[in-house]
């Protein structure tokens, strides 16, 4: 069994090792090792389009994860005391949002937005008090559309996670707080929030990861905003240079760093209470 586990880990890490190895290739190609060099890291650092793509991805991921976590947690809290048709509708929508493949979300958002933009933009052109048509604001695909589409999927994810946590929560604590005349807000802050926090944090992290790595939705609705996965996809088409490997390695290192610092922080915070 141990041998099997080792084999799986090899399977998981061989491609990553290859990515890291070729990021140090001095040659031009990502498949033909010519010698050791860190030149590609310099190239990445000096490539404004890579830095921009990373910035776009970070902004989109942070915005959509924040919105999804906020709205999703709010909805999950409200849903615990909702019954009847409203609950059925929300359950259904959450279910469908998770079930609909990303590619369909991308396509549906694209054609809906393009149709809506056509109408709104014509309207704007007609009513805007300016002579120069170039000065009339026009809606277009971009940050808004990517963030909106990513938030949709993440929102459903957060609702499910937080509701599962609430379902497993000890209701008596909330009732006890109410009996002790705590204000609703006080009850929420001191009892409910700490209890659901792990699910909220998990929801945020999952949403962020999903958004940061999403290609297929952004592929349709990004307009001219290049996110990191779109940049990488374009690079694969342009013919891959070790620059892509360098980007991959940096992303990996940064996430590892975040992971281990979170780990250390958690361990420090949790030490006194952790029994098992």
């Amino acid at each position, binding site marked *: 069994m*141990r041998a099997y586990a080792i084999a799986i880990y090899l399977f998981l890490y061989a491609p990553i090792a290859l*990515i890291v190895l070729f990021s140090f290739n001095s040659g031009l190609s990502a498949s033909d090792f010519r010698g050791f060099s860190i030149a590609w890291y310099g190239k990445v650092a000096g490539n404004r389009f890579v830095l921009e793509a990373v910035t776009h991805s970070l902004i989109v991921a942070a915005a959509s994860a924040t919105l999804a976590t906020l709205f999703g947690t709010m909805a999950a809290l*409200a849903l615990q005391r909702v019954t009847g048709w409203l609950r059925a509708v929300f359950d259904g929508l959450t279910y469908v949002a998770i079930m609909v493949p990303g*590619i*369909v979300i991308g396509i*549906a958002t694209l054609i809906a937005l393009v149709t809506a933009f056509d109408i709104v933009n014509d309207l704007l052109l007609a009513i805007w008090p300016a002579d120069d048509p170039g000065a009339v604001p026009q809606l277009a695909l971009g940050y808004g559309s990517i963030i909106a589409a990513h938030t949709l999927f993440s929102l459903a994810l957060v609702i499910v996670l937080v509701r599962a946590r609430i379902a497993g929560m000890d209701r008596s604590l909330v009732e006890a707080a109410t009996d002790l005349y705590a204000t609703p807000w006080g009850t929420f802050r001191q009892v409910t929030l700490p209890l659901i926090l792990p699910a909220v944090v998990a929801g945020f992290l999952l949403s962020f990861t999903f958004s940061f790595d999403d*290609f297929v939705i952004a592929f349709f609705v990004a307009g001219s905003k290049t996110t990191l996965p779109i940049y990488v996809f374009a690079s694969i088409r342009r013919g891959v240079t070790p620059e892509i490997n360098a*980007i991959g390695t940096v992303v990996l290192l940064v996430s590892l760093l975040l*992971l281990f610092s979170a780990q250390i922080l958690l361990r420090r915070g949790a030490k006194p209470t952790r029994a098992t």
Partner: protein
Amino acid sequence: MAKAATSDDSAKRRRRWTALLLAPAGLWFLALLVMPLAVVVVFSLGERAPAGGYAPALSLANYLNLPARWTAFRNTLVLAPIGTLVCLLAAYPLAYFLAVRTSPRYRLLLLILVIVPFWTSFLIRTYAWMFILGGRGLPALFEWIGFGEIRLINTPLSVLIGIVYGYLPLMVFPIFVSLERLDKRLLEAAADLGSTPWRSFRQVTLPLSAPGVITGCMLVFILLMGEYLIPQLLGGGKVFFIGNALVDLFLQSRNWPYGSAVAMSLVILMLATVTLYLRLTRRYGGRDVSLL
């Protein structure tokens, strides 16, 4: 709860709060799920504009033409379940090893190591497989060993390898979680009572891990049904999934109405299979299986 709801006033206030809390999510679902899907339905009844795109019409022609994408549907409906199954078979022993056989000291680290690949861009990892499965990768190695000429890239097998690689961690995690909850004393008790390891596994471990298995399979299956990148990069445009057919219809042949019909069918197919799946597995999963 009953006490707080006695007066009309507080009930009203509570209802207002509930509405306020639900409003943003509700609006989001409405504007970005219900409306776009409605537009897709409308488009799917239209026809292709002369230069491509959408022209209004009211016909079922696009749905009647669905058999023209039969191979893409078949590939998806065959490779998605197979991929899910292979993921499960590969993930279960690992999850079991991590949850039952590893000392708690290393468990977390090993678990993290399963998830770390997720933080390297999915695209870049899949690209690495393009190289490994390509002529200069494994096939060259096999030829050198003396297996003769083997072609891996752009075959269903290479797509399957990409699938298992990409989604294995998603399968390991839920199974691990359900196995970790398992009380090891149950296994010891079973062993004490003379049960063989295989029998204890079958009668104790397996049923207890069912919720994790069911959740993991559903997660992977859902993602595979809409897969585009893996067949695109490792299938060389030869192993087409519905996702690829969709991209092709929207970004090459510019047949939005037909693409909308294919997209709707995918959604319906998806809801049908997953609902059926949840029905069938409910008695094994008990109440532990939620949506995710």
